[in-house]
C-alpha cells in the first residue's frame, strides 16, 4: 500500500474516537476561557501540552491558586503514562531518523497509541507503520485544536447528558479483543481491570499506571508458569 493510502487509513480510523474527543476538546477550550486565561494561552495549551486530562488539571489548579510547582508536578504525573506508550511503540520506529522520531513523539496520545498498536497486529511494512501512525496521530491533533478553538469561541454548547465521551471506551473495546489471544493476555486484561478499578481514587492517575504495569507483570508470570509446566 502506498504512503498516502496508509495515512488516509490512519486518519479514517480515528473517526469513531472523534465522537468522544471533540466534546472533550470543546470542554477543554471552554474551561480555559471560563478560568480567565489569556486567549493566546488557551490555544497554546493545546499546542504545547496536547494532552487533555493534564490541560484540564492545569487550568483547574491554577484557577484555584495552587503553587506553580504543584501544578507542574500534577500535570506531569498525569502524563507519565506517555513514557509507557513510548516504550511500547518504540520498537516499531527504531530505524527512523531523529526528525521523524521527534514528530512522532510530539503527536503521541492514548488514542494514536491504541489505534496504531492494534493495526500493527496485522502485517504492515515499516514504512506503512509510520504513515498509518502519522495519519491517525495528525487527525487526532487537528481535531483536538479545532475542538479547543470551538470551545474557546463558542463555549461548551454540547449537551453533557448525551455522554458522547462514552464512545472512547467503546472504541477501545473493539481494539482490545483482537489483542487477546492466549491465557497470559487474558490475565493481563483481567489484572489491569481489577487494579484500575481498585486504584481509581488514587491521585495523579497513578491507579491507571499501576494497573497497566501489574497487568503486564501478571501476564509475564503466567507465561513463565506455563513454560515451566
Amino acid at each position, binding site marked *: 500500500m502506498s504512503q498516502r493510502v496508509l495515512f488516509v487509513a490512519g486518519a479514517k480510523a480515528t473517526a469513531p474516537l472523534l465522537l468522544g474527543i471533540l466534546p472533550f476538546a470543546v470542554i477543554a477550550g471552554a474551561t480555559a476561557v471560563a478560568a480567565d486565561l489569556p486567549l493566546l494561552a488557551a490555544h497554546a495549551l493545546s499546542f504545547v501540552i496536547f494532552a487533555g486530562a493534564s490541560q484540564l488539571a492545569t487550568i483547574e489548579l491554577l484557577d484555584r491558586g495552587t503553587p506553580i510547582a504543584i501544578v507542574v508536578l500534577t500535570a506531569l504525573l498525569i502524563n507519565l503514562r506517555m513514557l509507557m506508550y513510548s516504550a511500547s511503540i518504540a520498537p516499531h520506529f527504531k530505524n527512523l531518523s531523529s526528525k521523524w522520531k521527534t514528530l512522532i513523539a510530539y503527536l503521541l496520545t492514548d488514542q494514536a497509541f491504541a489505534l496504531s498498536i492494534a493495526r500493527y497486529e496485522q502485517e504492515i511494512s515499516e514504512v506503512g507503520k509510520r504513515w498509518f501512525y502519522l495519519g491517525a496521530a495528525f487527525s487526532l491533533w487537528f481535531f483536538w485544536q479545532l475542538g479547543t478553538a470551538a470551545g474557546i469561541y463558542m463555549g461548551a454548547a454540547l449537551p453533557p447528558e448525551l455522554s458522547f465521551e462514552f464512545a472512547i471506551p467503546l472504541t477501545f*473495546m473493539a481494539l482490545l479483543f483482537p489483542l487477546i489471544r492466549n491465557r497470559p493476555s487474558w490475565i493481563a486484561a483481567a489484572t489491569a481491570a481489577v487494579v484500575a478499578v481498585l486504584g481509581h481514587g488514587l491521585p495523579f492517575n497513578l491507579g491507571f499506571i499501576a494497573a497497566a504495569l501489574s497487568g503486564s507483570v501478571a501476564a509475564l508470570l503466567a507465561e513463565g508458569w506455563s513454560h515451566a509446566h
Partner: protein
Amino acid sequence: MHINHPIWFAMLAIGAGTFVFRFSFIGMLSRLNVPQSFERILKYIPVAVLSALIVPSLVIHQGHPDLSFSNLRLLAGVAAMVVAATTRKIFPTLAVGMGTLWLLMYLTG
C-alpha cells in the same frame, strides 16, 4: 499581552516534560540496541493499558465502583463488550454501546 500570567511558565514546563516522556524510548531506541528482555516486558502493555482505560469507565459510577443494575454505563458496556468480542469491529460496538446507553437513559428518565 499577559506575559506574566503564571499559565505561561506552567505550560512550558509541562509541555517540555510531557515531550520528554513521549520522546524517551522512541528517541533513544536505536537499531543497535534492542535487548530482547525489553520487548518481552512490553509485550502485554497494550492489552493491559486498554483494559485499564475501558473497565473503570464502565464500573466507576459517581465516584465509586458500582456493579448494580442502576449503573447504566455498566449495562451498556457489557452489551457492547459482547459485540466487540464477537465482531471485533468498532462501528457495531459503538452503535450497540451508545444505543443501549441512550435507550436505558430514556427508559429510566
